């Protein structure tokens, strides 16, 4: 039973990683930009939810709805005023720009909220610890299931949107070839703005979930970025459902690692990420030489 428990907890944890990764994946897929401020935007959203929720004494979920809208606007502005300008100067400049934004955000949050560790956990009542008990040794947390469900719903909605709607098709066309997209009447810049808005709006959801299931402080962002990045790479870059798989693999690896030794929680995830990456490189290296076996001389 403990094995089932282990797998279930790992999968549910993976839901959170998929949730935080999906915006990063979308922005990279459409604009070829790795947004290094991704994790910090999640933390910014968490602080926004906390502030709105405590100031107006409303449920964090209601505050999240408002925050998602605010963060969508932030995403649009990020594209319009920072990324668009930096994209003109090649691939390295947007990377540096988002790195700078990351540092600036961390310091601004520190200035505004101080170094205290916060959580939304105490604002969501019983949800923070309630769980459904399958057996005495195996229970599933409602919050973890909610997060996993949100991740699946968000990824599903996003891939339906990209496949079935006119705007979604315009986004895919622009992702593939922005110059040609303009030649068939698509305003590529506006499409980038929409993609950035969606990306950052999903970050807001992820940030709020981070804040509900755990604690955060102004410097929590970079670690979330690393989780998101690892989930994307494990799942295969550019695939939304792959992102879910990647998140689950990362979650499972961490759960298994933590069971073996509590200190191995993070390490096991990083090693899995590294192993997947090394495996892919070996595969490609082998393919270029007529199959891995042939390349190794078997």
């Amino acid at each position: 039973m403990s094995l089932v428990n282990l797998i279930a907890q790992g999968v549910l944890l993976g839901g959170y990683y998929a949730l935080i990764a999906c915006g990063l994946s979308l922005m990279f897929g459409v604009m070829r930009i790795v947004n290094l401020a991704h994790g910090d935007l999640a933390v910014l959203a968490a602080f926004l939810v906390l502030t709105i929720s405590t100031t107006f004494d409303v449920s964090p979920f209601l505050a999240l709805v408002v925050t998602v809208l605010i963060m969508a606007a932030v995403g649009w502005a990020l594209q319009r005023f920072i990324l668009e300008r930096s994209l003109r100067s090649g691939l390295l400049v947007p990377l540096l720009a988002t790195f700078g934004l990351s540092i600036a955000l961390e310091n601004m949050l520190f200035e505004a909220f101080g170094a205290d560790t916060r959580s939304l956990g105490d604002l969501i009542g019983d949800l923070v610890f309630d769980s459904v008990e399958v057996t005495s040794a195996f229970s599933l947390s409602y919050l973890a299931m909610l997060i996993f469900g949100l991740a699946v719903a968000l990824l599903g909605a996003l891939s339906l949107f990209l496949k079935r709607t006119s705007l979604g098709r315009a986004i895919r066309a622009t992702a593939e070839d922005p110059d040609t997209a303009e030649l068939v009447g698509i305003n590529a810049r506006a499409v980038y703005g929409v993609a950035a808005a969606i990306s950052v709006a999903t970050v807001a959801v992820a940030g709020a979930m981070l804040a509900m299931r755990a604690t955060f402080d102004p410097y929590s962002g970079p670690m979330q970025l690393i989780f998101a990045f690892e989930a994307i790479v494990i799942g295969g870059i550019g695939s939304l459902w792959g992102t879910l798989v990647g998140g689950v693999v990362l979650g499972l690896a961490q759960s298994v690692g933590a069971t073996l030794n509590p200190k191995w929680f993070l390490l096991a995830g990083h090693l899995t990420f590294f192993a997947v990456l090394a495996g892919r490189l070996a595969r490609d290296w082998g393919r270029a030489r007529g199959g891995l076996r042939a390349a190794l001389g078997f």
Partner: protein
Amino acid sequence: MSLLSIERLDVRHGLLQAVREVSFAIDQGETVALVGANGAGKSTLLRAIAGAHAPASGRIVFDGADVTSLRAYKRVARGIALVPEGRRLFGEMTVEENLQVAERVGRRGYWTMQTVMQLFPMLQARRDALTGNLSGGERQAVAIGRALMTNPRLILLDEVSLGLAPVVIEGLYRSLPQLLQGGATLVLVEQELSRALSVATRVMCMLEGRIVLDTPAASATREAIVDAYFGLHRGAEAKGAA
């Protein structure tokens, strides 16, 4: 009034001046063949008209309005469509999606998914195929169809027959007159002279960034075009001008 008029247009690729002080006007309903050697500036001229390449100086006037500084997507909305060299399809999208993408601009008219499929019946069966998996002829058909879906008033066709088998080119050229059904004006860049002359009402020849010959197709002799194409009488002209 002309549909398109180009005034002293200069287009550069960095230091290279690809189009030099070109001026001409095209009337509604004309089919213009733009010929010339590789590197004469034909593609660059088309791309400048479509808005894919910003000119260094000069004016592009379309339907009475200056569009020189309009971005490409806004020119599409006004009725200029370029079928780019090398097709440039969205390879990870299906045939149908490639056509639907061009619907977004919202220019309604003769061309719809249905009429485009009638024009290129071979696409019907390939509707759900990714365009990355199509044959060269099918891809060119999608590229032309995608431009038609914007119901353009001016269609710019860049090297549609490049890399295609002769029998496929034959088929494409047979369908060209039908492109005019929506009332469009056509400018086509073509390497092969006889093919260009078979559909055009007017021939323009470019040489080193300039238009060196501009004549009705009916009165164009092969010799005159070949001379212009290779610049055989350039020396004499230059002396005459001086």
